[in-house]
């Protein structure tokens, strides 16, 4: 039965494109991690009134590249009492979970690696696999710090998935779709339905900043803040970095990792930062749509809406959010565990519920 039809070749070349896209996304994740680590060091240096890396390359720009070269050469140390399989596989699972999330994210009009009509739900599901990888790393390391870090991380991610999920739902109720590309298209001049700024001013042909989800329904600003705070917790970023609190747990779940294993954990962390920022941008901040509105004859929005501008806008907005994440990390002190849970269950979750309710009312009466 193994006979090839001409149509099979067509599908084969299709699959080749899929592989190329996947490789491209991986390259992007790796490059972004290199850039992210450099940016993080420079931003932290600026905030703490230091210089940061200056020696390697112009302004130290080759520093992270040198670091990764060093890391690749290093020995992969597996502790004698560790569960070898779990220990080695864990960083891969952590990274792959984040990396698979990129498959559904839209980069521009008609430009999305995998067009699935429940894309948002898929991303949400895939991210939850990361927890499993972290638990695997913690258990596999056979180290008390690692296990404590892993358990804290899992507890934190599971708790904060709830306010994040509700914030996402309140945006989805406005958008009425789980397809990230549909959600994106709705927030600009390419939209096929009428968009109303704050529910009263028709801005369908004006577009720009005014048609972003946070301005279509102002309570989504609160939802966005809730989502952003929860995404910090899900990415284990400060002020929610108790899973790797270096003053108490050495380095948390990745204490025992060296060389490539550590590199993968790092790659996953920075990819995760970009991933959660990009989801936030797609859901609340207009995705690949331009912030510039049409003003009379000056069709700024029409001029700046196409594939290339789309990639540019979505990248700029996501990078800006990543920048805010870094700024927060070097500004705010770490939360205690009880404060963490209080914030999640007593502040964010009720607020997110309120957002869902308002979304329902908004959809029924104002749209």
């Amino acid at each position, binding site marked *: 039965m193994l006979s090839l039809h001409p149509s099979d070749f067509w599908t084969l070349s299709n699959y080749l494109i899929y592989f190329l896209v996947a490789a491209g996304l991986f390259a992007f994740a790796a490059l972004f991690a290199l850039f992210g680590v450099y940016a993080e060091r420079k931003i932290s240096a600026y905030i703490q009134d230091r210089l940061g890396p200056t020696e390697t390359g112009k302004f130290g720009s080759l520093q992270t590249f040198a670091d990764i070269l060093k890391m690749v050469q290093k020995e992969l140390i597996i502790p004698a009492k560790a569960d070898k399989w779990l220990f080695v596989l864990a960083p891969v699972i952590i990274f792959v979970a984040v990396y698979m999330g990129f498959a559904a994210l839209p980069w521009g009009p008609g430009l999305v690696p995998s067009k699935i009509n429940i894309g948002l739900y898929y991303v949400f599901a895939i991210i939850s696999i990361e927890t499993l990888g972290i638990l695997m790393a913690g*258990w596999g390391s056979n180290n008390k710090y690692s296990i404590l870090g892993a358990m804290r991380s899992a507890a934190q991610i*599971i708790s904060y998935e709830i306010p994040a999920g509700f914030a996402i739902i309140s945006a989805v109720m406005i958008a009425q779709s789980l397809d990230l590309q549909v959600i994106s298209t709705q927030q600009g001049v390419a939209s096929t339905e009428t968009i109303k700024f704050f529910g009263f001013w028709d801005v369908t042909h004006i577009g720009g900043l005014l048609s972003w989800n946070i301005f279509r329904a102002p309570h989504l600003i609160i939802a966005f803040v809730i989502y952003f705070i929860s995404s910090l917790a899900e990415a284990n970023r400060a002020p929610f970095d108790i899973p790797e609190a270096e003053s108490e747990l050495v380095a948390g779940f990745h204490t025992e990792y060296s060389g490539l294993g550590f590199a993968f954990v790092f790659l996953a962390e920075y990819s995760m930062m970009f991933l959660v920022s990009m989801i936030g941008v797609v859901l609340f901040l207009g995705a690949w749509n331009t912030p510039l509105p049409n003003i009379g004859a000056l069709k700024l929005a029409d001029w700046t809406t196409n594939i290339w501008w789309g990639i540019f806008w979505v990248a700029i907005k996501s990078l800006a959010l990543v920048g805010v994440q870094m700024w927060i990390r070097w500004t705010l002190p770490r939360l205690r565990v009880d404060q963490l849970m209080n914030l999640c269950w007593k502040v964010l979750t009720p607020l997110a519920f309120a957002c869902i309710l308002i979304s329902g009312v908004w959809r029924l009466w104002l749209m």
Partner: protein
Amino acid sequence: MMLVKIMFYILAAVALGSALFVAASKNLVRSVFMFFVTLFALAGLYVLALADFVAITQIVIYVGGILVLILFTFMLSGRETLDAIQQQKSKLINLNKLPAIVLAVLFFVVMFIVLRQADVNELDWVKVAVAEGNVIKPDGIQIENIGVNLMTSYLLPFEVISILLMIALIGAAHLSRKEQEA
């Protein structure tokens, strides 16, 4: 279609192989992680059956929720308990395993007979649906269908399940509360 068939057999093999490992392995924690592979392969099979919503729900609920909770209980229970479980004698045929074996064999027989007698491809309603074109297409949007049905035809079961979950939550809260003195 051929690729779909190949995918199906690969996924089925992965699901069965990992499930066997889960059942046979003496290392409980590894079994749990292997169970993750089984669940993932099952999710893949759902996708092949065009039930992508079910597939993703499977990942959210089982991988993101239940597996993580199982792991939590493992990590809270400590090494000694786990070691005790691992030191059980493991002969293939063992009096302790008799109920499990009987159950498994009976279940297999039931499944086999059902599969033989049902003759899935020749069912009347399937034929009618195919003739009328009342089938799910790969590019169809399922989620609205699911939402509308949950809120209309299946509203009562849906609400009953939410009450069940509520009862479980209240029970858990009650059990974990500290005993009041006097």
